[in-house]
């Protein structure tokens, strides 16, 4: 209906774009899959100390078996050779069950293919609060805590900083602008560092907020009270993360917007007398959309792994402290599970970004297939 004779036939253009897009998406998908594969394999090797954990486990199995046989009164009247045979038999059974008799290389490949299928297996030492030994259950139990805290902190930082930066770039050189720039170096300190100070001030010097944990013990039965308690516990870590990244974030967005608002086409729009709203939306935000989205998505997953210490400091039952505990227990399935999920999340994000770029940036869409 809208087809005017002036526009070229749209069908061919869309088909061509679609073909390039698919080709491009396929290539990126393969490359990312390969990346995840290598990354996960490296993690498996490191988490097993290149197979050395197996030797520790063998020693452990042997000592456990001999303890069990010695302590059992039913085996008291066996001769020592018989008893040793029994121990050997039990050890070899256990070794076979855990497949420790196979070389580490073979098992690492097996680990890898199970990890890639997200078959995370069972934990060796740890269990979820409900008592499940499945790595999947353990991780899922911790997931909401992490998502709640880091999701809200990141969203807050992101939106506040982008809008504050837009605001400041309009008034650059003002006292407010200069003071925010002067504050930017404070972001050299990570969130946990501010956390320590906040705990010191708001939990001990002026005890108004809890110093750690996620809810009061025992947890309130009422749903609203529960939510209020979680909120109160969230406040300090939230402020800590906010403080540690807000100023640098505003600073870099502000510089970014300033550079883009001094482009010729923006000057041109200004010269034409367009309202500043419109300039901001159509001439500054639109061309800078892809970097904004990139940093948004990367930020969403970025703090995922860097949160170990903040969670430790605030005693927050999230994925970071789970990973830390798992490493302490040398519980390789849990470690690998955590890293695999992180790797997949990152890969999915990068893939989404690639597609988004292709949609937002016509240059990628057209040349993408040939890259």
């Amino acid at each position, binding site marked *: 209906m809208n087809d005017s004779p002036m526009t070229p036939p749209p069908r061919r253009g869309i088909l061509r774009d679609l073909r390039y897009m698919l080709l491009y998406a396929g290539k990126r998908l393969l*490359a*990312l899959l*390969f*990346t*995840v594969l*290598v*990354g996960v394999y*490296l*993690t498996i090797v*490191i*988490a097993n*100390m290149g197979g*050395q*954990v197996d030797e520790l486990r063998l020693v452990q199995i042997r000592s456990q078996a001999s303890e069990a046989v010695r302590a059992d009164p039913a085996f008291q009247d066996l001769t020592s050779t018989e008893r040793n045979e029994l121990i050997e038999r039990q050890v070899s059974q256990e070794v076979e069950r855990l497949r420790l008799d196979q070389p580490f290389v073979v098992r690492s490949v097996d680990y890898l293919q199970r990890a890639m299928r997200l078959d995370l297996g069972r934990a060796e030492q740890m269990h979820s609060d409900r008592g499940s030994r499945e790595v999947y259950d353990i991780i899922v139990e911790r997931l909401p805590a992490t998502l709640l805290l880091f999701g809200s902190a990141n969203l807050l930082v992101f939106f506040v900083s982008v809008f504050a930066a837009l605001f400041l770039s309009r008034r*650059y050189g003002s006292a407010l602008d200069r003071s925010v*720039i*002067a504050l*930017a*170096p*404070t*972001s*050299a*300190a*990570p969130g*946990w*560092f501010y956390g*320590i*100070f906040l*705990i*010191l001030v708001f*939990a*001990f*010097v002026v005890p108004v907020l809890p*110093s750690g944990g996620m809810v009061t013990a025992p947890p309130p039965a009422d749903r609203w009270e529960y939510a209020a308690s979680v909120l109160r516990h969230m406040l300090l870590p939230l402020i800590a993360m906010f403080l540690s990244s807000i100023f640098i974030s505003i600073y870099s967005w502000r*510089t970014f917007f*300033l*550079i883009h608002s*001094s482009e010729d086409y923006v000057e041109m729009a200004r010269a034409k007398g367009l309202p500043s709203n419109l300039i901001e939306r159509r001439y500054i935000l639109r061309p800078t959309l892809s970097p904004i989205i990139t940093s948004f998505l990367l930020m969403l997953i970025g703090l*995922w*792994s*860097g949160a*170990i*210490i903040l969670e*430790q*400091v605030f005693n927050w039952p999230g994925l970071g402290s789970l*990973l*830390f505990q798992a*490493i*302490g227990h*040398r519980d390789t399935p849990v*470690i690998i599970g*955590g*890293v695999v999920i*992180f*790797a997949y999340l*990152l*890969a999915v994000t*990068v893939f989404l970004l690639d597609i988004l770029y292709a949609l937002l940036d016509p240059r990628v869409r057209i040349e993408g297939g040939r890259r």
Partner: protein
Amino acid sequence: MSSGARWREHWEELRRYPSALVGMAIIAVLVGLSLYTVIAIPYPEALEKWRGGEPWQLHPVNAGPLWADRLVGGRQPSTLVIDSDAAEVEEAPFEGGRRLRMALAFDYQYDGFPSEINLFLRAEGHDQRPFARLLWQAPDGREFMLGGHRIGRDHRISISQDRALERRLGGLVPHIGLLAQPDSDGDAQPQVQTGRYMLMLDAVVFDEQAGIDAELVLYGRVHGIAGTDHQRRELSLALMWGTPVALAFGLLAAVGTTITTLVIAAVGVWYRGWVDATIQRLTEVNMILPMLPILVMVGTLYSTSIWLMLGVVVVLGIFSAGIKMYRAMLLPIREAPYIEAAQAYGAGNLRIVMRYMIPRILPVLIPTFVTLIPTFVFLEASLAVLGLGDPVLPTWGKVLNDAQSQSALYNGYYYWVVSPAVLLMLTGLGFAMLGFALDRVFNPRLRSL
């Protein structure tokens, strides 16, 4: 323009930023402190002392900094050591031995009670162990028997731990009860009785020559400029030695990662083809590997030596996201005419990469490099806070970790957390302020803003 003149121009430019000057001043102070520390307390001595034990015997447990107390007008006690060398000794020989009476006297003029009282006795060269009885005299003339002891070669009497004495003092721990004003109604807060106290040591020695050395120690509640920790160690030692360690770690890690990343990016850009592709894929793999968990894994499974950690940080940093940025900067340089000219007169591949490509973007890197240093300083502290600090080196992070594991905040030992944190913050601020100013000097595009 010669490069000397260009640097001078940059310097003139930099001087116009007050934040750069403040940053440089902070860095200069930290470097000065590090140099002083390394010269004044040699490395082996610092490690030996930080291990704890014997050298700190005369230091109080968890004492706050002296100046912080005096600043708010407090008069909390410092540690008092009363040595028998300075005390008057009465000798009375008898058949087969001597009787020694030592008066360990001191004047107590503080507002607070000591945190602990110990008596160290040394009796060397005796065939038969001497015997001593202790009598405590308060300024108002009250006397407390502290019991009799057979003295070993190196003997320590923990007066504060004397449960029987505690019961006799009406349930007050001895280091409070012995110095408190006599309590009339029985349940008021104990008050310090100031004045001249004396500990009478009445010893019987079964030897003609050998004597007894005594040291009465009233441990204070404040100590030195930084206070002490739960193992009686002076925190100032760790705070001072933490400075060179933090600076060295930050600097080496920043140099290691930026230089290697830059060289690898340049190699990739120059050779193109499969070399570039491999480097790009490795970068992506590295992005997927979470840095901190891997460091924690290495720390837990292998060793927490700070040099191993440094190595791992550098290795993980080689294929960091920075490669993509450098690559974008190097790509246009690769096509520049002067590179073609260099090729024409026969410069080799390595020469072009090292001498023609890398120097061109080095100035851009200087600000990044300076702002990277505090990141690594904090990384080291983070690892230490997680309990993965170097096992022997005293560092700021380890002080924080000790404080955390001893619930310093809960117990009110704020100085224990605040002093390392302030030093960390100063380091971070110093480098970040300088780095931000450098960024504006070296990146002309930002300067006009």
